[in-house]
């Protein structure tokens, strides 16, 4: 009796002590932009990682074998600079000795980080860069949670074909992303369906010459291959010039943040492809958006959802492979994994590319958005 009491007492003490004493930590590498031109999207990415880490830790950490590990993020600022990215990746692999790295925003920087990941056998999971070539390098340690430009364009091209918005004109960055995007769309839609194509340099703010050309070309629709800042300027200038053509935008143009830069009047009717409609009436998206708003006080963002899913997958891969140190084993676990994420079902193909759903949303007159594509997920104003 006495003996049994002592055993129970010790067991109880042990149970109490476990979370405090026996809980180890596992550091996970993050590469992102905290400063520089990509700092604003970098914030969304970090919000996603922080939310995932907090939720995992609040639930007691990652259970691997008999241990529970608290997740600790080791964050490096790569500032949209390939050299910084490569050196951060190297440091994470050799000095910090993390088993896996997530993040990055910039395709050029990701391209510099990927070979380093392969050299050291540390899986690199991209959650934002969209450059299609990244997953075409035969690098077994590279994974991408988000859709690539090719996947986004494919969905958009199908939608544009459905609507018959031809001829389609373009205003695009004069760089890899812009030119690659235009060429990809031309290939998908057919050369004869394109109208005027104009490129602008990073830092250009005056789109008037493109507008005159689009007006002269009589375009039915204009696709804007650019991000938030030039996008808001181009739309403002197009609408101010009285051009009533259909506008088609990118990921960056379907958020409340973008609305704040312009106004509902100028945006009404514009469509854009979107990886994540934060107000969609899907339980997983609604719950994520609520948790996100509670923590950060703003509308959830696709970059955050993708990054959240990436870190959740890492936790699952650690559980599945039974290791928090072996990059090779984690790679194998990730490669064969199927994960029900916020953005949808995530499964990496042989090239490490996931195939999440791609949406097309449209701005309504009251500044909300509706989902127009895919057909099975259509939803009215307020759900996009």
């Amino acid at each position, binding site marked *: 009796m006495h003996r049994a009491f002592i055993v129970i007492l010790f067991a109880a003490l042990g149970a109490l002590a476990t979370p405090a004493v026996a809980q180890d930590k596992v550091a996970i590498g993050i590469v992102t932009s905290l*400063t520089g031109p990509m700092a604003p999207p970098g914030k969304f990415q970090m919000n996603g990682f922080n939310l995932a880490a907090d939720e995992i830790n609040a639930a007691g950490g990652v259970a691997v074998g008999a241990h529970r590990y608290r997740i600790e993020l080791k964050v490096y600022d790569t500032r949209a600079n390939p050299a910084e990215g490569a050196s951060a990746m190297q440091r994470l692999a050799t000095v910090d000795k993390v088993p896996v790295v997530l993040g990055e925003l910039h395709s050029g920087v990701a391209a510099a980080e990927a070979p380093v990941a392969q050299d050291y056998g540390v899986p690199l999971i991209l959650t934002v860069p969209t450059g299609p070539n990244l997953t075409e390098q035969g690098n077994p340690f590279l994974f991408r949670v988000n859709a690539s430009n090719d996947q986004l364009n494919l969905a958009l091209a199908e939608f544009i074909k459905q609507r018959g918005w031809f001829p389609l004109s373009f205003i695009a960055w004069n760089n890899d992303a812009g030119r690659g995007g235009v060429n990809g769309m031309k290939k998908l839609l057919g050369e004869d369906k394109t109208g005027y194509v104009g490129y602008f340099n990073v830092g250009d703010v005056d789109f008037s010459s493109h507008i005159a050309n689009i007006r002269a070309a009589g375009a039915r629709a204009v696709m804007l291959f650019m991000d938030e800042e030039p996008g808001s300027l181009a739309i403002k200038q197009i609408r101010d010039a009285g051009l009533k053509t259909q506008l088609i935008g990118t990921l960056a143009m379907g958020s409340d943040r973008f609305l704040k830069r312009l106004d509902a009047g100028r945006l009404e009717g514009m469509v854009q492809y979107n990886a994540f409609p934060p107000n969609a009436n899907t339980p997983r998206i609604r719950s994520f958006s609520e948790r996100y708003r509670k923590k950060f006080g703003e509308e959830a963002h696709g970059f955050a959802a993708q990054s959240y899913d990436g870190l959740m997958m890492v936790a699952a891969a650690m559980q599945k492979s039974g290791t928090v140190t072996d990059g090779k084993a984690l790679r194998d676990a990730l490669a064969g994994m199927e994960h029900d994420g916020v953005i949808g079902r995530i499964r990496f193909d042989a090239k490490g590319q996931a195939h999440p759903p791609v949406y097309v949303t449209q701005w309504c007159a009251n500044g909300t958005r509706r989902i127009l594509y895919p057909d099975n997920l259509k939803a009215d104003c307020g759900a996009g």
Partner: protein
Amino acid sequence: MTAALLEQVVNGLMTGSVYVLVALGMVLIYGVMQVLNFAHGVLFMLGGYLCHFFFTRLTGSYSLALLLTMALLAAIGVALERGVFRPLQGNLRNQVIASLGLILVVENLVIALWGPNALQLRVPATERLVALGELRFPLQHLMIIAVTALVVAALFAFLKYSKLGTALRATSQDRHAAMVVGIPVERLDMASFALGTALAALGGALVGPLFLVFPQMGDAPLVKGLAGILLGGMGSVMGAVLGGLIIGVAESVSTLYLPTDYRDSVAFAIMVLILLARPRGLFGVRVRGEG
């Protein structure tokens, strides 16, 4: 087609006006001090930021913000002349290097104060659209052209009829002769800097509401303004005005016939062609003692 041409001419006059404001300031300073101030682009940018500050934080009146910006930048111009360019007087190479260094100082100062991201400068009064036939332009767009025209007219009157203007012209024609007849050339150095930076500031403050205010906003106007000066003839005020306008209109109109990414090449090709035909530019003057 004619509508597109008209649209591009109006667009070109606007960008050209911006180049003119930058070019005029550089030409005034060059005329008096024989130094090309490469920091003029960042002073233009600083004008945009200060106007943003005065308009959104202090006054709420755009015209008042414009005047305050010009006044403050004129003072900064004087400080730069006294603090940076005067101590290096007589050493052209060091003055040019100092002006390049100033670019880094000003740009990073602005980034430290306002951050690296673009700011919106929304002036509701000038966002109104004005119809010209079937074309529509924001009021701000046309205002840039009108204000520049006024400023150019005022500057010509000032240089021709005022005592200070005459002294400026005399000094830029021959500094030593000007000193001999009792013109206080060092005070004129300060005056030219004050006037030059105020004009650049006006440019930045005018462009801000139409586009955005961001750390690199002065880069293109600096390079194109410089091209305008070379095209018009080094040291000629009339040349700076015409050169800036020619470059602005030519690059805008060219986009109707050539891919838009050639627009910068067009500006410089025209500059090269004119310099081939007239090596001193349109209004370049032969300086005594020079080739």
